[in-house]
């Protein structure tokens, strides 16, 4: 299941942010291949903090035909014990020095996140290697993880946001597309039927250095990092290249859907479409800039009008999402009180029509270019921001020079390119509208 929507959103925002006014990122990044792993060290001025990010292709879309939950379960079992030690011993080693190391699985990738004090970098690297290379998959722990997931997903069913996202992914992506979430009941049935052997087989096939990227940012010595990675990962083989699935074909899903949940005081709305575009397609950056002008921040058209002027929502935004590994989607996301839902949708529709037919103005475009420049500097000022941006750049096939290149692309862009991308790729008549919550009868 795609549990890392928020992380992806953060990565996308970070990696599309603006221009550089400081030394080139590429000049400061030390990139090497060690034991087949793409290792990037990025020292910064921060003291005593190291942030890790990494990924390898082991996501849900790679599940064996007979069980869609296996990749998620493998990811969830990595910290539940290795051939050398049980989960409590692993946790004790990390917790006793205040370090963190976690794994999440989305449609395409296993993502690694970690943080530690500088002196504990060798420990984190060694534990990461142990968990990736030698997970034990104890049957008793698998049973506990299954119960845990069953509870987590049952609780998620009461979330209007979760239910809206689920319905949207199923409406705009066809079966088999990595961005399409499986129905919860189907997924939970797969969780229950998965076996240790299923997990071991998947791990054998997909876990390895072939497309593994590991990034460390902060108070890190590149030479020392390389030595620890060499020590911990030497001899590891296997893995698969990142898959290149077919792009989404239109679905025949209903264009207006209600996910009714009783006794909810807020309705979550998603209104959007699959774009058929990947991040590195020629029109995508222009579409992202145009989408920011429409629905990013407090002065974007959506917040300025639907919230600030009309008072119809606490939050509304538009974004281009889920296009790093596959073609993605364009969406408007909003919250509305049930009694203001119809008004809110009507107001949003007015803004959408205006934006999609008339495009953005040169003044708005110039402001957005300037916003990119400043945002870049601010976002890359933390180890987390830099690590997320570097990982997204590599995943998109650009390498570590992309954070330097991106602002130049934005600076060279024209308002006509933006308006052309909006007209070409956003099709208001094809958008799918999802309303999740206690939707009043008149709005159904």
């Amino acid at each position, binding site marked *: 299941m795609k549990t890392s929507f928020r992380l992806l959103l953060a990565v996308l925002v970070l990696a599309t942010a603006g221009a550089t006014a400081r030394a080139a990122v590429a000049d400061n990044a030390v990139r090497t291949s060690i034991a087949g792993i793409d290792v990037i060290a990025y020292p910064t001025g921060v003291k*005593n903090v190291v942030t890790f990010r990494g990924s390898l292709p082991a996501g849900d879309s790679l599940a064996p035909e007979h069980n869609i939950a296996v990749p998620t379960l493998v990811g969830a079992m990595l910290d539940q014990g290795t051939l050398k030690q049980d989960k409590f011993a692993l946790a004790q080693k990390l917790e*006793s020095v205040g370090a963190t190391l976690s794994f999440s699985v989305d449609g395409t990738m296993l993502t690694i996140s970690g943080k530690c004090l500088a002196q504990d970098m060798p420990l984190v690297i060694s534990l990461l290697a142990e968990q990736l290379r030698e997970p034990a998959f104890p049957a008793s722990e698998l049973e506990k993880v299954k119960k845990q997931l069953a*509870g987590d997903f049952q609780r998620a069913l009461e979330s209007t946001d979760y239910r809206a996202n689920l319905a949207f992914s199923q409406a705009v992506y066809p079966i088999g597309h990595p961005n399409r979430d499986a129905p919860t009941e189907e997924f939970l049935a797969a969780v229950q039927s998965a076996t240790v052997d299923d997990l071991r087989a998947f791990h054998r096939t997909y876990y390895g250095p072939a497309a593994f990227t590991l990034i460390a940012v902060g108070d890190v010595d590149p030479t020392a990092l390389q030595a620890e990675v060499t020590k911990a990962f030497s001899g590891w083989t296997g893995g698969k290249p990142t898959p290149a699935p077919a792009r989404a074909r239109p679905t025949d899903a209903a264009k207006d859907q209600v996910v009714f949940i*009783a006794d909810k005081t*807020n309705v979550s709305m998603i209104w959007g479409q699959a774009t058929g575009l990947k991040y590195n397609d020629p029109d995508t950056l222009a579409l992202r800039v145009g989408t920011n002008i429409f629905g990013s921040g407090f002065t974007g058209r959506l917040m300025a009008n639907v*919230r600030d002027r009309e*008072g119809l929502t*606490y939050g509304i935004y538009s974004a281009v999402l889920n296009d790093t590994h596959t073609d993605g989607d364009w969406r408007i996301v909003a919250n509305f009180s049930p009694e203001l839902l119809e008004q809110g949708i009507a107001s949003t529709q007015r803004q959408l029509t205006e934006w999609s037919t008339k495009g953005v103005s040169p003044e708005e475009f110039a402001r957005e270019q300037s916003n990119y420049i*400043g945002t870049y500097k601010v976002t890359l000022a933390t180890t987390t921001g830099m690590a997320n941006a570097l990982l997204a750049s590599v995943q998109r096939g650009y390498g570590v020079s992309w954070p330097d290149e991106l602002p130049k692309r934005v600076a060279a862009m024209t308002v006509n390119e933006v308006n052309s991308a909006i007209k070409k790729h956003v099709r208001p008549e094809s958008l799918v509208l999802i309303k999740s919550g206690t939707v009043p009868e008149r709005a159904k």
Partner: protein
Amino acid sequence: MKARFLPLVLVVLSVLGARAATPVPVQVDGFSFVKTVGPISEYTLASNGLSVLLLPDMSSPTVTFMVTYRVGSRNEVTGTTGATHLLEHLMFKGTPNYNREKGNSVDQFLERVGANFNATTWLDRTNYYATIGSEHLEGYLAIEADRMRNLWLRESDRQPEMTVVRNEFEIGENNPTEALDKEIGAAAYMAHPYHHSTIGWRSDIEKVSIEKLKEFYDTFYWPDNATVTVIGDFDPAATLGLIKKYYGVYPKAPAPIPQVYTEEPEQTGPRRVTVKRAGQLGVVGVAYKTPSRRSPDMPALQVLDAILGRGKGSRFYRALVDTNLTTGVGVGTGQFHDPSLLNIYADLAPGVAHAQVEQVILAEIERIKKDGVTAAEVSAAINQILAQSAFRGDGSFAMASTLNEFIASGDWTLYVTFDDAISKVTPDDVRRVANLYLLEDQSTSGWFIPIVPAAPAANN
């Protein structure tokens, strides 16, 4: 921050240690130097009492500028609950000098230069901040200072903003744990204004008048009720000059800032609440009265908090999550100006009874009170807290948001000294505070009981 329960990542707001060399104070006409503690220097603008904290950090060419007003939902009374927060929203509506029509409002300026900015309200304080490229500091500082005293407060702005805030309230009500947390807080506090959550009661959000909000603004938004914090890449002397230029135009508050004098009467028995709403799975909450953040017992309580609920090695993880009684458990010790709560929230697994989980929680607490904790547990907890503290030095915004809470607690120097206090906590300290504060008669427990829809939840 409109929740009394603190997420785990926020509850241990200790910081820093010796991350930077002790700065040399600067002399700027009009400012009194107060003190330097660790990397932070405090100044006062003599003409109006504005406090200023400076923390230079040159690790990136950015700066965070923040103003913290010492007014939060603890300053509200019946009829004005939520007013501090609503006023915070209205602070973005403009002034005669800076507004949307002129194209130079605070959000227009900050989104043009590319900033991380916002404002938040909590029990004891309201803060406004932006992290920006250092070259934009004066532009933001001028706008921030201007709205301290020149805000437009118009009924035509209140009406649409009220429904915005009401929707924020509604989003919170969608969450069972948040709904339970509000009711536990309301039961735990009878007299003290921590009784109500920062978002306020729905009827007050809807009906508080613009006149009341203006009265609130004119009572609390003055330089002598504020602290300005600057962290990042800036020149201290030049920045003090800018602060004087833009904030020095205001006098002190014309009347003394009203102080909250209501104290919570001693609780003399356990309290209990139940929330029944549509939902899927239950939640158990248990809260105990704890002291102010400035209490010398707070470091030991923080270590106790980590031993109970942080990580797979914690007591509650082993007793509740690893046994599949719950899908998660969190512990948060409130760190506020006035006595607060240590909250425990456990998300029930399917088919598990509330009473069983509550019993396990209470048994684990009794075990610590009776048998104490091990030196290894204390050592791990201390290291976790100190590492989290170091992680909050990653970027000027993280530092500012942490320092903000210490300012609100009434002693910003804890930002520097708290780590040292944490490192001295012993197993005996932990056992002592467990016996002193985790008392049945000082507890408030709550159950969220889901009313599961008759039909299957959904096919999604």
